[in-house]
């Protein structure tokens, strides 16, 4: 009898991801689907797509879904979760979406302790629109709107979302993970699962920030992009648990 060691999660459709080689979006999609499957919620989940490269999320998941306005997914998810308190509700958002145009919505959803889970992809750049500066673009990092590298004096400083949201009382769980290595991917999956578990226990808002890659707009190969996550992104965006109400943190 052959045993299945690896298969596509039930939560994913058969559509091929349109993401560039070396992009973190595909990895994180898979992790979400695996966690939801394992929790038995494949037919009980609603996912909110962002405006950004992941806008076509509804093509990839078998869940009910919605294309949210740019940055507004936390407000839309609030309306969904309050209507369906027993569904698992997820927003999936990039750094332009969440940390720039949607900053008010994420802070207030977190502060209200809305019982949904946000998966926040920090790739330090605007992917979909072609590599403009994001609120998370590192000092010195080049983008199409900071062509000599981000100068904090001119372009302002990056924003660390986990640290910022962890000051609030509403969130139940906040962790920053990365997907640059197999070990980190495994850790990322555990964090997503924990966040979903906290949602299920109705403990409050949960967020997992994933330090990710955008080889296309970073002007790097897939491999070099992952190295950059390790050498530059993670030191600026330290991994770890920022809030865990079960642990009194």
């Amino acid at each position: 009898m052959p045993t299945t060691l690896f298969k596509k999660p039930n939560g994913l459709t058969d559509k091929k991801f349109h993401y560039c080689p070396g992009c973190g979006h595909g990895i994180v999609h898979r992790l979400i689907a695996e966690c939801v499957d394992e929790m038995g919620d494949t037919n009980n989940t609603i996912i909110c797509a962002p405006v950004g490269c992941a806008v076509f999320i509804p093509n990839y998941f078998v869940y009910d879904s919605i294309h949210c306005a740019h940055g507004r997914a936390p407000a839309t998810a609030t309306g969904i979760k309050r209507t369906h308190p027993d569904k698992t509700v997820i927003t999936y958002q990039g750094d332009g979406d969440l940390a720039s145009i949607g900053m008010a919505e994420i802070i207030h959803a977190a502060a209200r302790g809305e019982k949904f889970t946000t998966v926040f992809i920090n790739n330090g750049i605007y992917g979909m629109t072609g590599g403009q500066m994001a609120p998370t673009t590192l000092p010195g990092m080049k983008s199409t709107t900071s062509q000599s590298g981000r100068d904090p004096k001119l372009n302002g400083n990056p924003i660390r979302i986990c640290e910022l949201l962890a000051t609030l009382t509403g969130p139940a769980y906040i962790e920053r993970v990365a997907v640059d290595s197999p070990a980190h991917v495994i850790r990322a999956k555990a964090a997503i699962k924990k966040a979903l578990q906290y949602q299920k226990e109705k403990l409050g808002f949960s967020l997992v920030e994933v330090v990710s890659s955008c080889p296309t707009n970073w002007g790097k190969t897939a491999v070099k992009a992952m190295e950059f996550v390790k050498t530059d992104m993670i030191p600026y965006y330290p991994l770890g648990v920022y809030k865990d109400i079960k642990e009194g943190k």
Partner: protein
Amino acid sequence: MAKVLMKGNEAVGKAAIQAGCKFFAGYPITPQNEVPEYLSRELPLAGGTFIQSESEVAAINMLYGAGGSGARCMTSSSSPGIALKQEGIGYCVFGEIPCVINSVARGGPALGTIQPSQQDYNQATRGGANGDYHIPVLAPASIQEAVNFIKEAFEIADVYRTPVIVLEDGLIGQMMEPVDFDVPVKKREHTPKSEWAMGYGNGNPHLIEGIVMDAPMCEKKNRRFFKEKYEVIEKEEVRYEEYMMDDAEYAFVAYGSSSRICKTAIKTLREKGIKIGLIRPQTLWPFPQVPFQNKNIKLFIDIEMNMGQMVPDVALAVNDKNKVKFFGRCGGMIPSPEEVVEATEKIIGGAK
């Protein structure tokens, strides 16, 4: 049932609950604050959710999620707040979300004034979201009518899966009038939410769509909306009142508060021998056409609390812009019946 004396804004809140509204999100702004205040207290008692959102932008995007999940939902705001909601309204249109937007207009632009105005006629009927779309706009002229229209708005929203705007002005929101909350509103058949809303897909995914893959699909969707929604709404949902039009040679055209002022002016003008009546659109989109085909009318005199935003709609309906005249006050100023009488006499040259 006996009538109760109630403030317009509170009556709107009560009507929403009666209509089965289960989700409300809104941000404070004068002159509609009594709507969220009332609902914050009463909606939870009726098993609904009240959220004071961080902004008007968030409120409409909350409706996008709640309505998209099948909840009867409403937001309420006033002029600058409605301006902020526009992008979200576009998503609600494209995603086919039944929802009600209560809009209590004040003087503008910008912060303008908090006094009542009708300067948001274009904002309501033309909208500020991107793309081709229409939204039904109901314009009550009394608190009783506001109550009835709020209830009807929920029905229309469900039938066509569209946002519906109830456009009032601060006068209707702030004054008190006796209201009968038992005037029946016809329950209408519509596609059950279990067939389209989020949370009912069960592995057969329900998608609330904000983007389509390519231009031909986007055009097709636009054309479907025009054929299946807007053409039908234009046929089925037009509402208007004709007042003293039987023998009229002149007609005021006015909606909401200004129509009440016209009714008072008509009395004076008729005493002076001027045969004038009133055409009162109750829906601003779809805009009534039939009453403007009246060949006995020499002049249609549009009276608004703005600079004449409805004039193009009247001129199109009359199909002769020379027959359309205008008088109005704006920026939160309310014309007195005497002013309207005087302006009318000037317009028609004292002719009988």
